[in-house]
């Protein structure tokens, strides 16, 4: 220990990097990750690495239909990520997006099944919108109330609410199953299309994409330029400061989670009313969790989230193409997503910290 040995390297905090270098580091991490993904894919399928990406691009952009599916998936993931963002800005770890989407989806389906073909379609759609937003909001606000009042751990609470929602959906799926004993609801109002969200022209997914685009822009302004947005940032940084300047933190927490849950409810509405026209326990497909990572990768900036969701959806769609061709399991996409995330998460280190390698000053001195 008393030997004259200096550590090989040593870590120190960096001053803020210019934005182009920090985004350059992230881009480098993504490229590195894509290379690793290609190697993994090659190892499993024997495809040559370039062909891997050819196939993935084909899977994501190959046909107009695939393009639309890509756009639709980005829209839904982006919608959920946007919904979670205000909560995260407030340092409220809402990992209950899954449950809030399910709650919204269930409410939409309930309206369609119970009221469909009985009342005018325009009225039905209005009720669906209201119901899905309200249910999502309720699902989000329950943990928020307890967090605000007793500081109950929201990470686990929202997580558990996911499973409560899943079981609730499972319950109603059996209640409403068509035909009896099939264990699923099937397409609701296949013929009358009652409660289906309207199509714009012949583009089935365009409405969803437009709605999410509008939400994205609104969210950007809400977070950055409004009084509410400012309050959220202050509460997130320090609750004591918020109290000190007279911000009612309980109210901000509850209000923000109402918004967060409501937007998740909208995602559920778009899924059931806009695309799937049915409800299953897996309709959110883990996007409540993926959304957390999208929001975090984009540093909670709504505009960057578009790119982050694009990246993850592209990977997923590309991986699906590969698995279909090679008869492999669909979960391949999750592995690739995981790898990419590991690299991006790791790259943050090089943005905030610097590695200093020590020069061998002793030897240099002796030589001189």
């Amino acid at each position, binding site marked *: 220990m008393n030997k004259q040995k200096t550590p090989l390297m040593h*870590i*120190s*905090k960096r001053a803020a990097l210019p934005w182009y270098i920090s985004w350059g580091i992230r881009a480098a991490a993504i490229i590195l990750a894509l290379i690793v993904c290609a190697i993994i894919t090659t190892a*499993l399928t024997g495809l040559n690495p370039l062909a891997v990406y050819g196939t993935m691009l084909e899977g994501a952009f190959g046909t107009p239909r695939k393009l639309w599916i890509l756009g639709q998936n980005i829209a839904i993931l982006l919608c959920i990520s946007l919904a979670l963002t205000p909560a995260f800005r407030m340092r409220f*770890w809402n*990992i209950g997006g899954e449950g809030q989407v399910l709650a919204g989806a269930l409410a939409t389906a309930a309206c369609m099944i119970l009221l469909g073909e009985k009342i005018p379609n325009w009225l039905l759609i209005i009720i669906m919108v209201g119901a899905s937003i309200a249910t999502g909001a309720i699902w989000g606000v329950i943990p928020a109330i*307890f967090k605000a009042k*007793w*500081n*109950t*751990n929201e*990470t*686990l*609470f929202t*997580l*558990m*609410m996911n*499973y*409560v929602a899943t*079981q*609730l959906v*499972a*319950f*109603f799926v*059996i*209640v409403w199953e068509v035909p009896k004993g099939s264990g699923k609801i099937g397409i609701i109002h296949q013929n009358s299309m009652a409660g289906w969200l309207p199509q714009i022209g012949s583009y089935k997914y365009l409405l969803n994409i437009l709605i999410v685009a509008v939400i994205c822009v609104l969210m950007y302004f809400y977070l950055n330029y409004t009084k509410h947005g400012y309050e959220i940032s202050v509460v997130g940084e320090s609750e004591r400061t918020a109290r000190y300047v007279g911000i009612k933190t309980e109210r901000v927490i509850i209000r923000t989670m109402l918004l967060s849950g409501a937007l998740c409810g909208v995602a559920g509405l778009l899924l059931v009313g806009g695309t799937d026209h049915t409800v299953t326990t897996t309709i959110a497909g*883990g996007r409540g*969790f*993926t959304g*957390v*990572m999208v929001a*975090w990768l984009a540093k909670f900036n709504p505009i960057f989230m578009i790119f982050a969701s694009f990246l993850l959806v592209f990977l997923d769609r590309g991986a699906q193409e590969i698995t279909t061709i*090679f*008869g*492999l*399991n*669909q*979960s*391949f*996409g*999750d*592995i690739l*997503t*995981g*790898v990419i*995330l*590991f690299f991006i*998460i*790791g790259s*943050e*280190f090089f943005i*905030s*910290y610097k590695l200093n390698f020590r020069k061998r000053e002793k030897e240099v001195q002796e030589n001189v």
Partner: protein
Amino acid sequence: MFDVVSFIPRAVMQSIPLLFGSIGETLTEKSGNLNLGIPGVMYVGGICGVIGAFFYEQSCGGAANMNGFLALAIPLLCCLLGSLVMGLIYCFLTVTLRANQNVTGLAMTTFGVGFGNFFGGSLIKISGLDVPSIALSATSGFFSRHLAIADRLGWFGKIFLSYGFLAYLAILIAFVSAYILRRTRVGLQLRAVGENPATADAAGINITRYKYLATCLGCMIAGLGGLYYVMDYACGIWSNDAFGDRGWLAIALVIFTIWRPNVSVWASILFGGLYILYLYIPTGSAGLAMKELYKMLPYLVTIIVLIISSMRNKRENQPPAGLGLAYFREDR
């Protein structure tokens, strides 16, 4: 009539994966790491055991040729190795690179569950072997073997002696870790690392080493939960997503037990019981649908416990103060 003698063994079998998971997570959290990747780790632990067992069974060509020791040791080693790698990934990202623990954990879960399901669904295709499905009943036979005497002891044997060795191992690990945490130097230092890393560091404790050790060991213990599930509980048959959300329940159990592995033994049996209670409750004609509602029970109970423990704000019952925070010595 509620059949206690058949209910308890099933609850216990249901509880063992939760127990492994919650001990692993407790050790991890005691070092200040909140590992939300435990569900993924348990999948990886399970599937790695399956892969090891699968190739061993294939190479032997039949249960008769299998060596009992190897049949246990190979899946065990594979499982521990797989979980260890997951633990190392988590530690490298959160301890060495000081990444956000929540995001890293979620990414690990995405990766781990995907990894499990992918190999579960594609193992046969990739290995190019000609078998219909992954059914490792021979290996499972070794894992679920219990003392012959149990069958002759009636209800006593059924309730206490009818389990495979991994179940007893889980309980043993629970009590050993509780002892280590409370009574030994290593445990004291681990607690200090999780409570206040800056203090522990100033006291000359190697924070990085403790965090790596506790987290990797925790992951390996949790991985055993996945192995137990597939080899003992599911009789060696891997089906995708069958393991379900037990990993998340294991994390919830950690809070439920206020970071005490010995309490976890009883708590996980309780949770295991709640998990299968729907099978024992007469539900009448609307049965199928009602069962789905009964499956909510463990989650609702967790929520209620969460709320109650947050209302009774006792100093000793709080999570480690450094939980979820990356430590950097030169932070000023």
